[in-house]
């Protein structure tokens, strides 16, 4: 999700609608609106629709939704005299360029154009790694022959917002953009550059443009370069940019792009065709739609559509609709044009009986018994830190805080931490939790969840038996056969620790008094008895 800020009155005046109506229309185009100030709105755009990242794109879509214009918007396109020669650039091999003439910029639309460029960088451009854009004042470019090639880092030019010439190296080290994007495409002391054939640099993709071709309110004609690592992506980005500018009233002029592997005119404004039947649309939405109405809705979605035969139609996909991958994407457009608010939800039909997992059923039973035994249920985090945890556990590679760096392999540490926090509460404190720990296991990830029930009592005086008598009754009522066997545990007192054994062979839990040394290390001043039961191992024939 991306947010853009737009000049409100431009939208309202061009569409002749109220702010409330705009809000409703945008809601139906997947976007939420928030007022910024009395002149500006913040609009949330979904990642699949980069063509809506600027006001002209939004206007184009709403004109369809409001049936002011139907079918694809047509823009004037002609071949020009400019060329872009693409040489070998290892780190960003692809470059294309296009020209838009006759744009009228003011302060707001200039700001929005730069915002459009930035938002495209973030979304389709994957933070300039995949695609980077340079927009220039065409009239400040002196040569018609532009070249994309690698230059050495000591190459000099005046970057945007500077008064003097710097080497590329200095630009990468001293400017904000240089620090942020400087490492993306530099390799072996060379960087990609868009320059005139006379050697004058226009931009250092994906970092910065030159001051020489800076955009101003007086700028009327634009030269746009797009570079990147995917030819599809750079080509689509140029299509989106130039068509949105054309929607503002500009005229698209093609640039001849010459490379070893491709030689053609850009922007390509490549249309694709897709066939779809009204039966398919009807079946997917769950409505009976006529072929005529499907055509109408698709035209509202700004597609040119023609009838093929029967209920089948052919849809022309405009170059800027990068989200249309298959027929189902057209179905969504039809649904949106009908309006989700007009789609009556089908009445719910119960088809068969539902069921809980065995683990859920058993967990519910244990929870009931635990309450009967006098324990209050607690709910702690699965993530914890490695200070108090023992044995083998899963570490997070990229934790966000020192408090949560690992996944617990037992519920005992998180319960002890809970008790530590409650030493000033009224005693006795009897608590339990049923939750998951993560342990190593024979799965396709090498790890698996292990459901545990942990019980503990903290009081000014408490003993093994106080807890054991309760656990005993819980296990007895679960109808399993069990006994206790003397055991040792790093946190528990030797001689006051037992394992709980099911069917004379399987360890299903541990119970014991927490060692005073452990309590002291944790900063706990009250005695604690604790028990952990491995719930998943209890499940068997009788349970």
């Amino acid at each position, binding site marked *: 999700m991306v947010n853009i800020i737009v000049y409100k009155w431009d939208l309202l005046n061009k569409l002749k609608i109220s702010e409330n109506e705009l809000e409703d229309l945008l809601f*139906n185009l*997947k976007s939420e609106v928030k007022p910024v100030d009395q002149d500006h709105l913040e609009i949330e755009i*979904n*990642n699949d629709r980069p063509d809506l990242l600027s006001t002209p794109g939004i206007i184009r879509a709403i004109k369809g939704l409001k049936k002011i214009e139907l079918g694809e918007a047509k823009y004037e396109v002609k071949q020009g005299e400019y060329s872009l020669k693409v040489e070998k650039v290892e780190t960003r091999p692809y470059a294309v360029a296009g020209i838009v003439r006759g744009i009228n910029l003011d302060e707001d639309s200039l700001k929005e154009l730069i915002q459009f460029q930035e938002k495209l960088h973030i979304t389709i451009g*994957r933070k300039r790694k*995949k695609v980077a854009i340079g927009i220039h004042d065409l009239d400040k470019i002196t040569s018609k022959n532009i070249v994309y090639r690698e230059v050495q880092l000591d190459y000099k030019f005046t970057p945007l917002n500077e008064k003097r010439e710097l080497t590329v190296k200095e630009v990468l080290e001293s400017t904000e953009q240089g620090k942020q994007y400087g490492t993306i495409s530099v390799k072996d002391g060379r960087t990609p550059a868009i320059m005139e054939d006379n050697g004058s640099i226009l931009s250092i993709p994906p970092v910065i443009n030159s001051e020489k071709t800076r955009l101003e309110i007086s700028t009327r004609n634009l030269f746009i370069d797009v570079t990147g690592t995917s030819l599809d992506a750079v080509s689509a980005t140029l299509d989106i940019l130039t068509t949105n500018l054309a929607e503002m009233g500009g005229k698209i002029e093609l640039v001849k792009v010459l490379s070893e592997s491709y030689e053609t005119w850009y922007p390509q404004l490549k249309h694709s065709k897709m066939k779809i039947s009204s039966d398919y649309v009807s*079946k*997917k*939405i*769950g*409505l009976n739609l006529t072929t005529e109405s499907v055509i109408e809705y698709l035209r509202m979605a700004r597609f040119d559509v023609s009838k093929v035969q029967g209920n089948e139609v052919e849809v022309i996909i405009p170059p800027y609709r990068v989200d249309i991958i*298959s027929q*189902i*994407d057209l*179905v*969504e457009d039809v*649904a949106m044009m009908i309006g*989700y608010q007009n*789609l*009556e*939800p089908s009445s*719910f039909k*119960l*088809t*068969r*009986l*539902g*069921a809980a997992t065995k*683990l*859920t059923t058993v967990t519910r039973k244990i929870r009931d018994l*635990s*309450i009967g035994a*006098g324990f*209050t*249920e*607690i*709910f*702690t*985090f*699965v993530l914890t830190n490695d200070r108090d945890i023992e044995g083998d556990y*899963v*570490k*997070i590679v*990229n*934790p966000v805080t020192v408090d949560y760096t690992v*996944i617990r392999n037992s519920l005992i540490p998180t319960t002890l*931490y*809970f008790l530590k*926090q*409650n030493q000033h*509460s*009224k005693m*006795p*404190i*009897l608590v339990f939790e049923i939750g*998951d720990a993560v342990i190593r296991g024979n799965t396709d*990830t*090498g*790890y698996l*969840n292990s459901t545990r029930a942990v019980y503990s009592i903290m009081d000014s005086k408490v003993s093994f038996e106080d807890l054991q008598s309760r656990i005993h009754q819980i296990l007895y009522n679960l109808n399993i056969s069990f006994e206790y066997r003397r055991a040792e545990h790093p946190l528990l007192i030797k001689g006051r620790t037992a394992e709980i054994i099911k069917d004379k062979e399987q360890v299903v839990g541990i119970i014991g008094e927490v060692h005073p040394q452990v309590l002291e290390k944790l900063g706990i001043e009250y005695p604690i008895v604790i028990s952990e039961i491995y719930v998943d191992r209890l499940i068997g024939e009788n349970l």
Partner: protein
Amino acid sequence: MLSENEIKIVEYLKSRPNKSATAEEISDSLGIPLSSIYSLSQLLKEKGYVRLEEKKLTKYELTDEGKLRLQRGMPEDVLIKTLNGQSRKISELKELMGNELEIALGWARRKNLIKIEKDSVIPLVKDYQSPEVDLLRDPSKINDNNYKQLLARKLISVKQETALILSLAREDITVVKPITYITTDIIKNHEWEKAPIKEYNVEAEPPFYPLAKKHFFKEFLEKLRDVMINLGFTEVKGNYVELEFYNFDLLFQAQDHPAREIHDSFMIEGKGEVKDLELMNRVKEMHKKGWKYEWEPNIALRLVLRSQTTAVTSRVLSSRPRPPIRTFTIGKVFRPDSIDATHLIEFHQLDGLVVENGFAFRDLLGVLKEIFYQIGIKEIKFKPAYFPFTEPSVEVYGKIEGLGWVEMSGAGLLRPEILEAVGIDSDAGAWGIGIDRLAMLLFGLKDIRLLYANNVDFLRNFRG
């Protein structure tokens, strides 16, 4: 009806020869604070058990000098002891007795214990103990006749005090001890017929009791489970550590999608495996065709903490089940974030899946409407949305009293590309509901962290 302490006082008075005692004596003997004895006396008087009388008493107390003399003896006693039957020079005695000698000589002469010739003191007795020391030892022997000399010698001070004297009002009184606890013996021996049962202050607040109760948020999760089961869904579960393949790739999330950057999911070291190579290949083809890039199997095999319960749905799909299917899962998911009143790094989602022939978008809306109705959200609206694995996609907004419309769920029909990859020839819908924030709103909590409060008193006091 007498209280326990009142009974003790009456019994004590009965044991005294003249059936009376001062409040002070009672306090000392029974170990009850004097202030309590005063108030109990009034109660006993009102109930007719005792008479009260105030008596002025003269009380003699030893001064510091008195206490010193009790210990050492009077100066004249010391002198006689020092002489030990022999006459000695005054100067010699001065050295032994210091300033005390003057007083000693004065009193010894007055008491006719010595005579002085020239510079020598001649004892008239061999040993002597002043009667004053006896009085100091037992001040009760001090009376009007002998106190004046003690007072003159600053050995005692005199105090006037008012003593409260309690006397039993009736000789024949018998006190029946009331029953506090009803015991087996009391019931069996019919003691409840012989003694009254003590009344309690039944209107007072009781002491604290540590009630055991279920956690309100766990109960909310169970309620959601029941809603889904009642709507005919079968529960499935998955593990927290997950392959990116199931968390992202199978769900048509491109490998360079922003959600897959390192700050958007918790990464775990190591690699997993996908045994179904055919499925791997189909997913590869799906990505290549849909997103136009080279799909990298090694990225898909990386481990993450699942960032969406859709990973569980993804596992269900990958098992290539035969429709019709209705499943759901409720569980924890993990996402890096800064923790505050509305953000957690681990929270819960409910994911649902329907695979049925002819399952249309409107059917999906119908299922969502029913789920939210059962949760208690009666008014919802639908907004078009974008998710990589569904199309058409929808966001569900629910109306919450006092808050307005709140985003609650993301849903949609599963993309045909995904169904094709897992080899399911049917229609399918899926959705995810964020649970924690919904619970927070429904419980009226201001801070989402309270769902996991490390505070037992909060849990004891919370009435969900």
